[in-house]
């Protein structure tokens, strides 16, 4: 009931509608690419490289003669996958930490807070450098690095939201009913911070796509023959003078992708209780 009405209210928010549509298209393209792309992306066709827009290759072909549109679909999918799993890592570790900190207070909270501050001091790129130094560059390492940076973000939002909830009387009522802190966190706290977390997740998702692009650019992210939006952009940039569209297509895709998810997050946030959302500024 409550979610539905939130969603309905959000739908009347114009930027939310734009964001929803954009995100939907990107996610759809990514999902389709898993089972089908117009052309396989591992076919190399040197004579037909740098093809321009045509009926057979909608967005032309790249420097190895691969179909740009297929690459774009696969690139969106892998960028999304990296960002999504990074969000999952951040949320799966961060949210329990945040909830625990809010539930226990005291020394556990102090440790979690210090841990948070500590992780914040390691921007994704630095984690990525360390991980890459250890294991070599790959999309998985980029994902882990971004995910690590997401941990304190989610922990912060979860704790911030949970702290205000723990002072509420229904939590006292639950305590009187003999529920343990963990039970209360799951039954009363988590569902009530979920909307905050969803908003944060959309924002971290768009940041994740950007971070993946940055990491791929400096060679710490996705590696050929796999592709991602960031890698496509990086590779195409050297052809900018000869074939500007090669760079503009993935560049634009990144910009639109990020804007879509940001608008989605903005719309959701605006629709939710403004008092609660204040904890997650950005």
């Amino acid at each position, binding site marked *: *009931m*409550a979610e539905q009405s939130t969603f309905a209210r959000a739908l009347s928010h114009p930027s939310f509608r734009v964001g929803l549509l954009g995100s939907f298209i990107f996610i759809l393209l990514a999902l389709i690419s898993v089972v089908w792309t117009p052309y396989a992306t591992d076919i190399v066709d040197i004579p037909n490289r740098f093809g321009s827009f045509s009926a057979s290759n909608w967005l032309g072909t790249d420097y190895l003669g691969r179909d740009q549109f297929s690459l774009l679909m696969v690139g969106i999918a892998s960028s999304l996958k990296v960002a999504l799993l990074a969000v999952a890592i951040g949320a799966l570790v961060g949210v329990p930490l945040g909830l625990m900190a809010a539930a226990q207070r005291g020394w556990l909270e102090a440790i979690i807070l210090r841990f948070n501050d500590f992780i914040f001091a390691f921007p994704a790129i630095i984690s990525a450098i360390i991980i890459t130094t250890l294991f070599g560059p790959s999309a998985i390492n980029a994902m882990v690095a971004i995910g690590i940076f997401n941990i304190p973000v989610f922990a912060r939002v979860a704790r911030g939201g949970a702290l205000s909830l723990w002072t*509420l*009387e*229904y939590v*006292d*009522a*639950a*305590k*009187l*009913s*003999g*529920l343990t802190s963990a039970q209360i966190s799951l*039954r*009363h706290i988590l*569902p*009530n911070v979920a909307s905050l977390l969803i908003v944060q997740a959309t924002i971290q998702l768009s940041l994740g796509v950007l971070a993946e692009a940055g990491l791929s650019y400096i060679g710490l992210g996705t590696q050929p023959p796999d592709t991602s939006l960031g890698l496509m952009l990086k590779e195409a940039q050297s052809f900018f003078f000869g074939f500007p569209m090669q760079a503009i297509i993935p560049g634009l895709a990144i910009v639109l992708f990020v804007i879509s998810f940001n608008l989605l997050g903005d719309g959701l946030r605006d629709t939710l209780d403004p008092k609660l959302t204040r904890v997650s500024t950005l």
Partner: protein
Amino acid sequence: MSLVEVKDLSISFGDHAVVHAISLSIDPGQRVGVVGESGSGKSLTALSIIDLLPESDKTKGDIVRNVPTGESLRGKHIGMVFQEPMTALNPLMKVGDQIREALELHLPGIDFVARVAELIEEVELPPSVANRYPHELSGGQRQRIGLAIALAGEPELLIADEPTSALDMITQAQIIALIKRVCKAHNMALLFISHDLGAVAALCDFVHVLERGKQVESGTTSSVLKSPQQAYTKRLIAAAKPTRRRLTTRTIGPPLLELDGISKRFKLPGPIWAKKSYVQALSDISLTIREAECVGLVGPSGCGKTTLSRIIAGLQTAQRGTIQFDGHAYGRKLGEMPRAARRELSMVFQDPFGSFDPRLNMAQSLYEPLNLMPELDHAERRERVHMALERVGLTPEMLKRHPHAFSGGQRQRLAIARALVLRPKLVVLDEPVSALDVSIRGDVLELLADLRENFGIAYLFVSHDLDVVRAVADRVLVMDKGKIVEQGDVDTVFDAPQAEITQRLLDARLGV
């Protein structure tokens, strides 16, 4: 000629009308009160007079202000004091500077420092307050600063929008006395907005009663109070004087709860290496509550009554002392309240909006206490919940709904129902009616009295409102600074108070 005249003022947000054709006038030096419950449109009316309505609101009707309008209207000719002393002052600015800012706007060229000092003295604060930040002051002190700011421009009219509702009784009485004194001293007119008939009666010559954006009754304060014409007004007056209920069919039984030497202190935050400092929240509290007895617990804010009630409910632990409840002992440091004891004790909270999880439906919330009784089967649980609902006068169909579908009064009934599901022997009532509109308080108190009569439940009734306590409690405990300073039969204590704080609390009452 009147100072301000409001004619047929209507205010609406979009299609939703909030204020319907209100008219009132204020003469120079006259003190006018506007009484109404939350959502009655009284604050919007006040804001429209000082021309501070949000731009999105649509207004109809006239407001004639017989003072120079334009930029100098606010502050110079009309001053205003707001409800929330915690948020009404800029937290980053010394309060002296906030007063000075108003002076600079309206009285350029005077000796600001001296005038700030005078204003602070006028609101009965020590001069050193000027260099403090708002968070260093108590609520009452901040409200005094708010008043000083409003007085800085020497306005002809002071608007006070619920200036005392966030304050405790004693402070409220002081602020009301102060407002009255400065109005008289400066021959300043007052528009006083309040939900509290007592406060209006104490301060105003003339009163307007609003009900859901409509003006239902107007007249001199004495005539309205003495012979109210409208049903709504009558209800308000009646609610301000709660009816007294005592046990009729049942007698008070043997001791149920016994506290002996309960003490609790809190550590103040500070650097780890610094010497630790503490506040003593409770010192050496001993008390007894008997079966079917209703014990009132009163005291000024910060006296420790909330901490004490939470320790009794097992939500907090004490550092010293023992609690004996129905044959169980708990409450010591790290002492867990035994589940068997939890089953016999429930609690009803102050805020009807915060006491239910908005994401759960009422069934989920009401079944929750039965977590303590895993031995019950589904039918027995169902029976208990339905029975509890019936007892508070609600029906089982409501269980499917979420909290937002209920009014404040209904929610408080549901909260009581939740407390009854366990069929407890003791219910801790933490300000159970304070957050409710006056007109529904009576019903809830009535319900509580019936339950005690019928099921022999004992109550610990925590309240700041002495009239309510006198009406419902058999015995009263008066707390001050973490100690019980006086206890005894309600009538004895309230008629012949021994402790100074009891006297002060009684003096602060604003009767109708």
